[in-house]
């Protein structure tokens, strides 16, 4: 059982790919055409840079989900936090002209605050009224997206263009390019650093221990003197802040403006959730599962471009991977305590 648990994140993709191959064969798609195209689409010449660029929001949003998850709370409102962070960063950059460096840092701080605030709202509602975080965050997400959209459409809108978008941000607010095309920016090291910090805090600090204990048994943590309500608020706000920051990082990168819908459309939030769940409760795996899903997604576009295979196929692979992982990881959950609504008695 333990062996299965350990290898679940490895075994599941293999099993899912096998099932997907069956789907391909059944629908007349040539796997020998599709898979190489998938790989080239993700890591082939010129594509790798975009895959790495897409990795930033996926990994960032994975943190946004994973941080509160350690206290047992499901943050499903990533889209709203992301969009609000993005538009807040754009607003800050446009309205408050600042010298270089500061012009990047300030919008990012504002973005984190905006995302954090939206997520934080769920905490007192959970602590005072017992409204599950999963519901609050889910319900707050569309209004967050709508508000961002409204701001981009009216007060911050660029004149004379067809899209609901802000003007291009001042040059000082552009994230510098690390590569040729400008899609590789310091956003990657920033998110990597945050991930490293989180992994360290989770495993190697008292705070991380208290967070884990709260997730494992809230009453136990409360009994042990941990301020569970405060911790819930802190982790939720932190998760939201990371989501907001990701929004800010994307907006400060090319095309250097907030475009309505652009942050939400790629579905980073649910890809990231899938990546975190795929890691079956082991934080160190999150960067890898995020990478796997990013590669699948980016590769899907390449596969469609090159081999004409609908990119939805990669969604099928992802869905299957997650279901299979859930089954393979059941050994861990055998002994797990009852979670809200879970079937474990």
């Amino acid at each position, binding site marked *: 059982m333990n062996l299965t648990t350990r290898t679940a994140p490895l075994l599941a993709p293999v099993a899912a790919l096998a099932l997907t191959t069956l789907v391909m064969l059944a629908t007349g798609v040539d796997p020998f055409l599709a898979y190489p195209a998938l790989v080239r689409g993700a890591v082939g010449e010129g594509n790798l840079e975009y895959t790495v660029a897409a990795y930033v929001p996926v990994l960032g949003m994975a943190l946004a989900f994973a941080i509160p998850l350690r206290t047992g709370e499901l943050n499903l409102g990533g889209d709203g936090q992301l969009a609000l962070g993005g538009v807040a960063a754009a607003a800050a950059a446009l309205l408050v002209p600042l010298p270089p460096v500061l012009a990047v840092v300030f919008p990012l701080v504002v973005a984190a605050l905006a995302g954090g605030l939206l997520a934080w709202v769920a905490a007192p509602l959970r602590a005072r009224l017992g409204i*599950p975080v999963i519901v609050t965050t889910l319900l707050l997400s569309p209004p967050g997206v709508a508000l961002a*959209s409204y701001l981009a459409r009216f007060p911050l809108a660029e004149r004379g263009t067809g899209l609901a978008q802000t003007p291009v941000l001042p040059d000082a607010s552009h994230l510098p390019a690390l590569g040729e095309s400008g899609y590789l920016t310091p956003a990657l090291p920033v998110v990597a650093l945050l991930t490293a910090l989180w992994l360290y805090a989770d495993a190697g600090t008292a705070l991380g221990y208290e967070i884990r204990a709260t997730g494992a048994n809230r009453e136990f943590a409360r009994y042990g003197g941990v301020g569970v309500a405060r911790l819930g608020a802190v982790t939720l706000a932190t998760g939201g802040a990371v989501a907001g920051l990701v929004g800010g990082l994307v907006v400060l990168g090319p095309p250097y403006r907030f475009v309505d819908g652009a942050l939400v459309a790629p579905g980073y939030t649910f890809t990231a959730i899938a990546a975190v769940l795929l890691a079956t409760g082991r934080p160190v795996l999150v960067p890898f599962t995020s990478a796997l899903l990013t590669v699948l997604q980016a590769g899907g576009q390449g596969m469609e471009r090159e081999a004409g295979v609908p990119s*939805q196929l990669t969604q099928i692979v992802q*869905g299957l991977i997650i*279901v299979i992982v*859930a*089954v393979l*990881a059941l050994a861990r959950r055998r002994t797990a305590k009852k979670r809200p609504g*879970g*079937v474990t008695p």
Partner: protein
Amino acid sequence: MNVVDLALVSATLTASAPVVFAALGGLLCQTAGVFNMALEGQLLWGAFSGVLFSHLTGSAWLGVVGAVVTTAVYALALSVPAVAFRADPVVVAVGVNLLALGLTAFLMRVLLGAGGVYTSPDLPGLPTFAKLGLDVPVLGPQSPLVPLAPLLVAVTAWWLARTRSGLRLRGVGGHPEAALSLGLGADRYRHVAVLGAGALCGLGGAQLALGNVTLFSEGMSAGRGWVAVVAVMLGGAWPWPVLAACLLFGAAEAFGFRLQGLGLPQQAADAAPYVITLLALVVAAATRGRRRLLEAS
């Protein structure tokens, strides 16, 4: 412009019907002790299979049957891992939702030869009451599945309270070990509940794709399944309150449309149903006390 009139009632019913079916499914699962977060994907599958079978058989009603049957089968993707293997239902649901998104879009291209939207004048849709000769306000423009939704809520309420299997389902959900020690296998009831939820989502999807409109478009569940999840919680997994929650959301949505007509920005209308639902939830929680809500989750 009138803000409240009979058309608003009608619009509320139309908007709510698919959500009510899905929420009723979620309620069954919750009662049986399975947290069903896969309603969104199942609703999507129901919409797709409804259109597919309507297209294949040339009959909208056979489309509904196809949707009910295949969505129940699709629900196996949740029930087998989550019930038989004791996998985390939340994790499985995320996978099931993604899978539905990919499968429907993929199969739509492969089987219906269309991407994005599949629509055709030859695609049979469900008749409205008006077409069936009952041209009354409110009900006239609805398909027969629309009144079926609250009817099923009533049946479910009665069934849970007054029948042997209903009682056992409540018991199984409340304390599976206890059920086991009485020789009532909890798993059987849970499988049935999850598959039943699948069938209901099939109905909801069919209503969405063949009743509300007559077409399938990619991702057309568009968050309605998530609204159903919220409605189950808001209604404390009790049939009538869950129905009320669905109607509240539907009314808020229809009302938001009206507000747009009065000059409010579209984004306000988008946010309205969620904000109103959240406010209702806050009020309900404040009056009902936090304990019950947490239990229901």
